[in-house]
């Protein structure tokens, strides 16, 4: 797909570890070094501060679990004691698991050993690596640590989150893994950018775009949650005033509920703060986050789908949001914060067009023509017939959907895994059918309610074009 991609450098010989042995971590992890392979590099431990961080993280969970009502029932002293005890227990467990966790690179595999009673060794084949992410939660930033997350095809969730490594170590390991992963070229000439890590260092490579924090704030104020919150607050306050009673639990619970409603927009603001997008040879680099910074690297050849969303309340501004899908994420994964699908949290049309052209060369967002289903489809979609559509571009299949929140899914022909045609009973009466293009990540694209003859033609065309694109690419 990316013709300008230089051939990947041959992977560095796996034997001598080019990693500078971190001064803090013991060189050989695991009692006895169970590796066995003679030329394997010694096992590395995670950073010795990691159990402390895990313990601190569990403290938050413990406090949330004990909840407000427990606090009011047992009093502050006992509450603090309970929380401290539970967190201490968690920390002890974290120390034990840290002692038994190790990783090393063997050939083109990353091996992670873990577990005390149930020992587990995971071998992660690096040629199936889809994306690498360096995540730094607030506490990790204060202590100079980072978590390395790998996304691998076929994994239902993020494989092998290595939590935590020193920042320099994480940067070196990431570059090494990406170099071994194949299509990502080894970043030879560029100076090591991650060794000195200020809060958000400029991403290496050619900067593509930076999202202004003001736009981000405004965009999240223009979400239904933020829009409707004042009404909710007014309602609750009116109730309190009319009943004339305040209790600690009622007030605290209300605040918690409000926080819950606002959680998503606030999280988006925090997550996408300082959003920087850069391109480095064949990879896309994304950096974002305020309290928790993430630096994510996606080889462009691994992009399966690009999604464009125009939320209802953003239309006045003409803004859109871009998402990308890589293989390896099941669509059902609950926590979408950890999906490395951010491409542009908010931006205007020219920006979106420029970024799409960068990610999918030769695709112009504005020029993607889609056609509507036939008029008789209005029996099935009385309101949304004009909102759905599909079109074949030179290199991509584009499908439009959504009446209020308009969406456009762009699937490169070369990424289509299979083509399906389905026809429900109502569609059969109207001689309509839906054509799906399945991709390895995300939900793929669907052209709903096409005329039957056109659906067959579309399916044949998609199959043929996917075939031709695979041959060419």
């Amino acid at each position, binding site marked *: 797909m990316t013709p300008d991609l230089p051939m990947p450098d041959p992977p560095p010989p796996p034997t001598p570890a080019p990693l500078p042995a971190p001064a803090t971590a013991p060189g050989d992890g695991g009692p006895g070094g169970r590796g066995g392979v003679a030329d394997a590099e010694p096992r590395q431990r995670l950073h010795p501060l990691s159990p402390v961080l895990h313990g601190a993280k569990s403290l938050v969970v413990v406090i949330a679990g004990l909840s407000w009502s427990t606090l009011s029932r047992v009093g502050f002293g006992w509450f603090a004691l309970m929380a401290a005890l539970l967190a201490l227990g968690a920390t002890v467990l974290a120390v034990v698991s840290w002692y038994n966790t190790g990783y090393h690179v063997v050939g083109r595999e990353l091996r992670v050993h873990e577990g005390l009673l149930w020992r587990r060794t995971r071998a992660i084949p690096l040629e199936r690596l889809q994306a690498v992410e360096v995540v730094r939660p607030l506490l990790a930033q204060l202590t100079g640590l980072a978590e390395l997350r790998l996304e691998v095809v076929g994994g239902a969730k993020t494989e092998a989150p290595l939590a935590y490594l020193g920042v320099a170590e994480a940067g070196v390991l990431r570059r090494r893994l990406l170099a071994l992963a194949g299509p990502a070229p080894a970043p030879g000439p560029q100076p090591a950018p991650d060794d000195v890590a200020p809060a958000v260092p400029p991403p290496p490579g050619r900067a593509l775009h930076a999202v202004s924090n003001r736009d981000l704030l405004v965009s999240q104020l223009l979400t239904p949650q933020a829009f409707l919150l004042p009404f909710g607050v007014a309602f609750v306050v009116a109730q309190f005033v009319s009943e004339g009673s305040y209790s600690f639990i009622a007030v605290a619970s209300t605040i918690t509920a409000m926080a819950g409603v606002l959680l998503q927009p606030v999280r988006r603001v925090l997550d996408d703060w300082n959003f920087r997008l850069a391109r480095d040879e064949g990879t896309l680099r994304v950096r974002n986050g305020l309290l928790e910074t993430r630096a994510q690297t996606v080889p462009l050849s691994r992009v399966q789908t690009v999604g464009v969303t125009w939320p209802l309340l953003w239309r006045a501004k003409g803004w859109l949001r871009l998402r990308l899908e890589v*293989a390896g994420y099941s669509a059902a994964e609950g926590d979408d914060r950890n999906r490395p699908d951010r491409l542009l949290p908010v931006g205007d049309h020219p920006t979106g067009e420029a970024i799409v052209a960068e990610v999918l060369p030769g695709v112009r967002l504005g020029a993607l*023509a*889609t056609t509507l289903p036939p008029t008789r489809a209005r029996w099935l979609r009385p309101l949304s017939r004009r909102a759905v559509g599909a079109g*074949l*571009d030179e290199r991509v299949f584009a499908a439009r959907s959504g009446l209020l929140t308009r969406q456009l899914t762009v699937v490169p022909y070369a990424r289509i*895994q*299979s083509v399906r045609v389905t026809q429900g009973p109502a569609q059969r009466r109207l001689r309509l059918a839906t054509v799906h293009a399945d991709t390895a990540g995300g*939900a793929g694209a669907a052209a709903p309610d096409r005329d039957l003859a056109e659906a067959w033609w579309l399916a044949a065309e998609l199959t043929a074009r*996917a*075939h031709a694109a695979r041959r060419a690419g």
Partner: protein
Amino acid sequence: MTGEPVGCPPPPPTGAPAGPLEPWPETVRWQSVSTDLIRVELLRLAGLLGVVLVGLAVGWVMSGHRLFGVAVGAVVLVGAVRVVTIVRAVHAWGYAEREDDLLVRHGLLVRRLSVVPYSRMQFVDVSAGPLERAFNLATVQLHTAAAASDARVPGLRPAEASRLRDRLTALGETRTEPL
């Protein structure tokens, strides 16, 4: 490289397709699955209905309530309808091997057709449950990297199943491309 939109030109009037599940009649030669699959499915249905009916009958005898009789009638009626649909659904299953892809069609109420290129195949499953084995049948399932792809062909003779599996793996090996 300008993205000259190719767009959706009006589909060439190739004439009405032969049937809703049979596109491209000139290039595709459909193969149907073994009719023994009907028996397998009917036996499965009979097993399920048997358990439900015994349960209902016990309830009827114990309580003597009229409602149980009505339920038995309803279950028998649903069973009869299922028998008809099973027979028709098995006849609706079909698969076709083309040069570059495998076509699988199935479904009566919701009709589905999958086109899976051999080069996208990740692995092939051949399975046969006890009932299927009793009738000398097997199921071949093709997996791609996309979870939504569904290319499952039940009711194949073991010889045909292994022939299909071997052909698919052979074709897949020569053509597999990375994601």
